[in-house]
């Protein structure tokens, strides 16, 4: 008997899982509120920079369709704004494995087409909570992968794992063509510009509908000088505001725009905010059937560390294995809880690190960031933490471990 699985949501986790299950012989139905063409014609959804481990999950399923065309992210740069409008810190950590950011409008549309071409059932319909009730009886497993929308409200907030109750940053994203490369670099890198007390600007090389581009991504402390995008609806208005804020707060990045940058298309901007939230993984339908939450439905972190799509890829890989290992046995509540815990143990480090980055850094972290300026191994280790955040536990969070690490390095250097 084929096992029938319904996946609600057509994002990174939902479609990676759908295509993976399909290749393993499951009968999969995906619900999306948009057709592939509508996804392509819509607005950008994320900054979606994926690092080596997450790209590896895609590669294992043969889904790395843009490996040759998307710009490679070979490093992670960190700059810290000084009080006088200059860079107090500016270094580049090298990634062991390259990352890539493929506009999800391209990826999700293509994956959805691929899923359908391979015989998958696609139902285009916006999903209401009340609809979900009906699906329990007709499928062996219902997975809710519909991101941060109202459906996530079916899952109770886990207050022990959710330290914040409100949004910690306001977000403003703009995809642009025409950003000049840094004259001192010959490798593609994600650049993190930290503006103490104000927020961050990330510059991310990416592939969008019209080719390679750069993503300008402001994260503003709520109520602060970067939290000014609310109510600005025109894409050009958002870009203009982004540029004027860059000029004021990160003039070295603004200089890269002065040869003329333009939005990649009319859907190239995204603004918003949300509270980082971890939820209980299982929602109980009135009919008694349980529903399992996927990726950011159950673990929604702030995008400050760019872990969202990476976590989604991890979640899809872990759930895929768990479903396959389950064989013919029922996907009951206990299995769902255990499956989620496997995912949680994989993303808890990313969640801890992300939540830490939302608060003002403690003195030892400031020291580490400053020390990386003259010690390349620190810069490299920080960069590779974007791929494997679990490593931060060993040297980043705890002042004693940080001091020990730096001492060891200096001992080796000497």
């Amino acid at each position: 008997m084929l096992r029938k699985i319904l996946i609600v949501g057509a994002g990174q986790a939902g479609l990676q899982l759908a295509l993976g299950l399909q290749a393993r012989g499951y009968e999969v139905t995906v619900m999306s509120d948009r057709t592939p063409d509508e996804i392509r014609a819509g607005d950008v959804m994320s900054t979606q920079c994926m690092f080596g481990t997450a790209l590896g999950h895609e590669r294992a399923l043969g889904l790395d369709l843009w490996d040759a065309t998307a710009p490679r992210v070979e490093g992670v740069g960190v700059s810290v704004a000084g009080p006088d409008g200059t860079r107090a810190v500016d270094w580049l950590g090298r990634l062991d494995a390259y990352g890539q950011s493929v506009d999800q409008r391209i990826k999700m549309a293509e994956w959805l087409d691929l899923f359908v071409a391979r015989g998958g059932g696609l139902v285009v319909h916006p999903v209401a909570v009340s609809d979900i009730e009906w699906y329990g009886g007709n499928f062996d497993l219902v997975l809710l992968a519909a991101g941060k929308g109202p459906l996530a409200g079916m899952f109770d907030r886990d207050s022990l794992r959710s330290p914040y109750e409100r949004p910690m940053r306001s977000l403003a994203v703009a995809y642009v063509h025409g950003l000049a490369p840094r004259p001192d670099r010959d490798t593609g890198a994600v650049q993190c510009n930290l503006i103490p007390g104000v927020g961050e600007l990330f510059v991310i090389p990416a592939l969008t509908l019209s080719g390679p581009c750069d993503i300008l991504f402001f994260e503003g402390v709520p109520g602060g000088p970067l939290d000014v995008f609310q109510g600005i609806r025109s894409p050009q208005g958002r870009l203009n505001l982004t540029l004027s804020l860059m000029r004021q707060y990160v003039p070295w990045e603004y200089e890269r725009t002065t040869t003329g940058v333009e939005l990649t298309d009319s859907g190239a901007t995204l603004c918003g905010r949300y509270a980082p939230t971890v939820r209980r993984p299982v929602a109980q339908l009135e009919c008694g059937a349980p529903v399992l939450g996927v990726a950011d439905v159950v673990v929604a972190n702030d995008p400050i560390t760019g872990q969202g799509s990476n976590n989604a890829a991890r979640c899809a890989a872990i759930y895929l294995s768990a479903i396959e290992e389950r064989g013919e046995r029922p996907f009951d509540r206990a299995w769902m809880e255990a499956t989620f815990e496997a995912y949680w143990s994989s993303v808890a480090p990313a969640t801890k690190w992300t939540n830490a980055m939302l608060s003002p850094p403690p003195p030892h972290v400031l020291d580490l960031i400053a020390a990386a300026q003259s010690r390349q191994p620190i810069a490299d280790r920080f960069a590779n933490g974007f791929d494997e955040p679990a490593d931060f536990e060993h040297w980043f969070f705890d002042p004693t471990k940080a001091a020990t690490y730096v001492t060891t390095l200096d001992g080796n250097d000497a």
Partner: protein
Amino acid sequence: MVADDGGRGSASRSARVRPYALTQGRTAPGHILFVETLVTTLDCEQGEESALDAGRRDMPEVRAIIVLCRGVRSVAEVSALLNLPLGVVRVLISDLAAQGRISVYQTAGDTGRPDRALLERLLGGLRRL
């Protein structure tokens, strides 16, 4: 661009490989169920047993769709007449189509907007009303 990994990885180890590896898909893949999309139960001449297979664990809603669609019905009609939400009807019909128990018609808008020939037939039909 589109990789065919139908025989790759653990799919080749599975005893439950979907037929898509051989057929490249269900019999009629890629239909989007518009509200006006027409559907009809297959094998209606052979009586109720084939589509209403007694061995299946069909929900009552699924059986109701099978019965209602012995005539040609639109997705919206199925939803209205069975008092089921449109999204539920879409999922159930999509599932029945995948199982080969319901036939899904193409609509004039399947490839975007209706073409000139269809528009001219429509215009003639409306002017005759």
